[in-house]
């Protein structure tokens, strides 16, 4: 197979949902503002613990980083955003220096004062990022986070089994009779609601109870037409032909494309979301200089291009993308989506306490 299949991504429901220890009453780190970083710190005296999704980085990452900078590093894997957040919030000092998490989680933790403001003097490689990647909704100006991978959600379908070209969320939500029982939707909270929100002209970050009620009505109508809710194997259902039209993350659709070139991806005309997976430095870290250096290292073109070549996600790094074989964007059209197109989509942000309303809606739809 061409790529290493990244099994675990973003907030997607996950393989093992084991949860890190979590004490009674999480305490947030005191908001001391964080001491200024020392540009002349002896980095070789520091060491790093990096929390990152499993299968989401090159296997030799730690060796390469140490060879280049002399900083020893340890990687701890997590499977979900919830897991890493729980780990960070469980105690004042989790021992983790750098944590990978999705944008809306970085936003929430940033607001809690848990994340260190980034010192860009350590991160000259930020210049490799596209301008669009510097104004992301969850953290404009990349104050506490830097984007690692980004993408959107759209329709992933079998062009040979559908006699029209789907281009609207309506094709999924109110399918033609011949497609009934052959479509799937994502079951993870914000993405289950996304298609209906966009079709109805709402924000994907809506905090209006009335809008959510309309979304619910649409989903209740859609559910009987679905083959299944599926976060993880929809592309296989496309390959076998069980499903012909699915709601899909762009990177995941590529796993289907790799097996069957008749599988295509489209961003519906009503628009979609822009999700971002980010890198953050914790305020509790005692190795902040090394942590910043690590972020800079990831943004090196030859390091960052690994993500595109191996897990088929877009990265917001112009210099890295220039290293990628142009044939890849032909084989996997979602890799040809431009930063301009991506940034037209609505950036997902944290909806605070309203997120329980999303959880409830998802439960109700699945249970109903």
């Amino acid at each position, binding site marked *: 197979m061409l790529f290493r299949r990244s099994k675990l991504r973003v907030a997607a429901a996950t393989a093992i949902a*084991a949860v890190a220890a979590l004490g009674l009453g999480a305490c947030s780190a005191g908001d001391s503002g964080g001491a200024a970083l020392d540009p002349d710190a002896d980095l070789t005296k520091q060491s790093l613990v990096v929390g990152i999704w499993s299968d989401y980085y090159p296997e030799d990452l730690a060796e390469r980083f140490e060879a280049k900078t002399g900083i020893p590093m340890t990687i701890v894997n997590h499977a979900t955003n919830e897991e890493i957040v729980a780990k960070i919030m469980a105690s004042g000092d989790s021992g983790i220096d750098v944590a990978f998490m999705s944008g809306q989680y970085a936003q929430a933790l940033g607001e809690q004062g848990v994340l260190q403001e980034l010192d860009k003097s350590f991160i000259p490689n930020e210049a490799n990022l596209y301008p669009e990647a510097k104004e992301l909704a969850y953290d404009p100006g990349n104050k506490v986070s830097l984007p690692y991978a980004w993408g959107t959600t759209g329709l992933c379908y079998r062009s040979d089994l559908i006699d029209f070209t789907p281009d609207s969320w309506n094709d999924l939500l109110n399918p033609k009779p011949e497609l009934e029982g052959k479509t799937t939707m994502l079951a993870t909270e914000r993405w289950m609601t996304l298609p209906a929100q966009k079709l109805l002209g709402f924000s994907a970050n809506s905090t209006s109870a009335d809008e959510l009620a309309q979304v619910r009505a649409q989903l209740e109508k859609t559910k009987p037409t679905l083959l299944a809710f599926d976060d993880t194997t929809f592309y296989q259902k496309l390959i*076998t032909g069980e499903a012909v039209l699915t709601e899909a993350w762009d990177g995941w659709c590529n796993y289907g494309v790799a097996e069957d070139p008749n599988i295509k991806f489209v961003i519906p005309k009503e628009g979609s979301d822009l999700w971002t997976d980010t890198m953050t430095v914790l305020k509790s870290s005692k190795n902040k200089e090394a942590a910043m250096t690590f972020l800079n290292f990831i943004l090196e073109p030859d390091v960052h291009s690994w993500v595109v070549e191996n897990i088929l996600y877009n990265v917001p790094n112009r210099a890295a993308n220039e290293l990628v074989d142009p044939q890849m964007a032909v084989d996997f059209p979602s890799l040809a989506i431009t930063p301009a197109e991506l940034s037209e989509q609505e950036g997902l942000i944290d909806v605070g306490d309203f997120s329980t309303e999303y959880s409830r809606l998802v439960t109700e739809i699945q249970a109903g």
Partner: protein
Amino acid sequence: MRRPKLLAVPFWATYIFLYVPIIVVVIMSFNASSNLFVWKGFSLDWYGVLAKDSAVLEGLRNTLIVAGGATVLATVLGTLMAVGIHRYTRGGLIRAYATAPALLPDLLLGIGLLSLFSLLQMSLGLHTVLISHAVFASAFVTAIVLARLANVDPTLEEASQDLGMGAGRTFVRITIPQLAPGIVAGALLAFTLSLDEFVIAYFTAAPQTPTLPIVIYSMVRFGVTPEINALATLLLVVSMTVVIAAQRLTRITEAI
């Protein structure tokens, strides 16, 4: 006696129902095609793929560590408990206390243990799964050894003590050998239960060290490949061997 022939219908239906899925899986494990639903000829390729799958091998290693450790712990604790109950109590409450964990919903035990481990700020890992498995497995050991104790001749132990053997030596030299079949059956049961246990492990394992059932769960969830058929066939052979060995050794079916 004449028995209505009609009864044979559900009887055979049961066995067909129980075995058709298994037979399909076994046959498909030898399929040359990567398509699960098309037969393309005989091949052992998927066993080769399996043998090189590091996630499966690591899951297997973790599972064997957990099952081995849990079996030792459960067998020692469960046997002592059974002997204690038999000798020093009239059964009743303490007997219920010792065997109830075998009946507890796995879901309850799973979230309860997760809650405990996180309250104690214990990091999750193989040790937490091992302890959790020993909990319910020990209850099974106690139950089986208790059943065996009911058929043990108490006069032997008395005679041994009359002859001046200490309590400890009597226990090791007389009691344990008499109980051996029960202990072995209990240990085998503990081992196979742990080997296959998913729900409790799912809650108490760390993501870095999944047990084999957890690995299988993510394989099934993240896409079914014929590799799973091969794995299933091998596991089937293993459990068949263990069940038949246990039967030979202890006649489990008679204990039912």
